[in-house]
């Protein structure tokens, strides 16, 4: 039992019977990874890779077929009330509570975690997430971005130690996305451990200390985001020659300009201009998923 790990996913399997085809589907095929306390971990993968199933297993919305999930050393299967207190979750789908306004929603949310008179924290979050002037509105009166921010406020009312963000920036405009990234970095500075699932590789590249790439229920890579890039992504060299020709080469990110020029037998004196594009996680990802 390692308490330095905010989250420890151990050989998680989930099989269910597909309602239409009546066939058994393996959503997770023995997934394992762990998140060090105080870090941001990015879980990347295409739609249907199993990201949401992993989140659902941590929050006990889904019961795994086998394996276990430890939150700060406690099993979600044998000690759910304790692990749930440590976890805050922002679901992928927005929850539209029809009857109540934002103040009431956060008040109830606090109550679910046994907190009474939590107004100070709720007001802080409303302010922090720019929802203060909308606090008397109902969710249906909010824009898509505000609903997302409300979801984040709800997840944080009880000051969790581990925050699960299931595609928090899906369908969100650029400005808001950047302010959310900033907020996530601030949360990390406060000591929060964060699990983020996303399609946006740029997001993972900027924010995450560690990433895991998951595809069809299996972890394809688990490590530092720069390692993924250096291992799988390619640097793109575009070389314009004085005679007007343009040469494009894709090479390993470890390769320097000199080595590239030598490899392709190009003289420095022939070169007019050079453009180098850094390897992107996006490319690495596409390459891995295609394997």
């Amino acid at each position: 039992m390692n308490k330095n790990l905010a989250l420890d996913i151990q050989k998680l399997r989930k099989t269910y019977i597909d309602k239409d085809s009546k066939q058994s589907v393996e959503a997770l095929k023995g997934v394992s990874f762990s998140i060090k306390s105080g870090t941001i971990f990015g879980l990347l993968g295409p739609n249907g890779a199993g990201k949401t199933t992993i989140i659902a297993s941590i929050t006990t919305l889904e019961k795994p077929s086998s394996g276990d999930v430890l939150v700060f050393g406690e099993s979600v299967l044998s000690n759910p009330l304790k692990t749930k207190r440590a976890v805050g979750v922002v679901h992928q789908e927005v929850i539209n509570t029809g009857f109540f306004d934002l103040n009431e929603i956060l008040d109830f949310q606090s109550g679910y975690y046994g907190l009474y008179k939590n107004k100070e924290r709720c007001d802080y979050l409303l302010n922090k997430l720019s929802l203060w002037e909308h606090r008397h509105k109902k969710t249906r009166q909010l824009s898509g971005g505000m609903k997302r921010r409300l979801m984040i406020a709800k997840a944080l009312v009880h000051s969790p130690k581990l925050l699960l963000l299931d595609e928090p920036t899906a369908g969100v405009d650029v400005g808001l996305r950047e302010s959310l990234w900033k907020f996530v970095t601030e949360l990390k500075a406060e000591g929060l451990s964060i699990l983020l699932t996303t399609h946006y590789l740029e997001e993972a590249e900027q924010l995450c200390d560690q990433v895991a790439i998951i595809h069809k229920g299996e972890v394809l890579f688990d490590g530092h985001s720069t390692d993924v890039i250096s291992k799988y992504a390619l640097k793109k060299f575009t070389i314009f020659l004085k005679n007007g020709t343009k040469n494009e080469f894709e090479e390993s990110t470890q390769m320097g300009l000199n080595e590239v020029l030598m490899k392709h037998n190009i003289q420095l004196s022939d070169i007019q201009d050079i453009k180098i594009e850094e390897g992107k996680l996006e490319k690495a990802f596409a390459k891995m998923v295609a394997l």
Partner: protein
Amino acid sequence: MIIFFTLLRREIKRFLKVAIQTVVSPIVSSALYLLVFGVSLGGSVSLNNGVPYLTFLIPGLMVMGLINNAFQNSSSSIVTSKFSGDLEDIRVAPIPHYYIVWAMGFGGVFRGSVVAIVTGIVGAIFHYLQLGTFISIEHPLWMIYFFIAGGLTFAFIGIGIAFLAKTFDQLSAFSAFILLPLTYLGGVFISIQNLAPIWQTLSKWNPLFYLINGFRYSMLGQADVDLPISVAISLFGVIVTFFIALFSLTKGSFSRW
């Protein structure tokens, strides 16, 4: 306890926000029953024990309001939450299942009691206008007992059905094919003494019959069933339905429709 009261507060606030639909409309329908059956037709119905029909009808309609609204409250709360996704918030929070069951149970008791009491007040006004006397409450403590037992039982059934139901149809089927016939044949409108022996025997298999008659006894001091039997069977109802509700939370789905 904070968690329990939060859930209860949420249930009560929810139905009060839509009070026209949840409180006023059932009261209007009860008032119409009173007017049509109690006042207009009441004069031509005679009961064996000499109780005026309007007096007999008022406690019956009160129980009907109680159980229908207790059932509606918990089941519609869960079903609307299934549509909106709210249930996921409850599911991921550290809340033991029995808190949810008790909070929704008492939410049902509260709404059911509000409807039943207002129905009783409207009934009392009709009673005074028609018969010139106030309707009595012979055993107020037993009346409270039946409010709680009846409200809890039907709120628990509402939880069970709403969690286990896979579609909206299944929920309304229970309401139309089971709840409604049991209520109408359980003695809201009739005394079994006026029925043929075969119907009398069948009525005794209807658990609602005991609840309705227990409640009627607490108000009028007389009913078709002895008080201890009504008390015992309604208590048994609470216990059985509590476990059904608890089971439904374990087996049923919190996820969205």
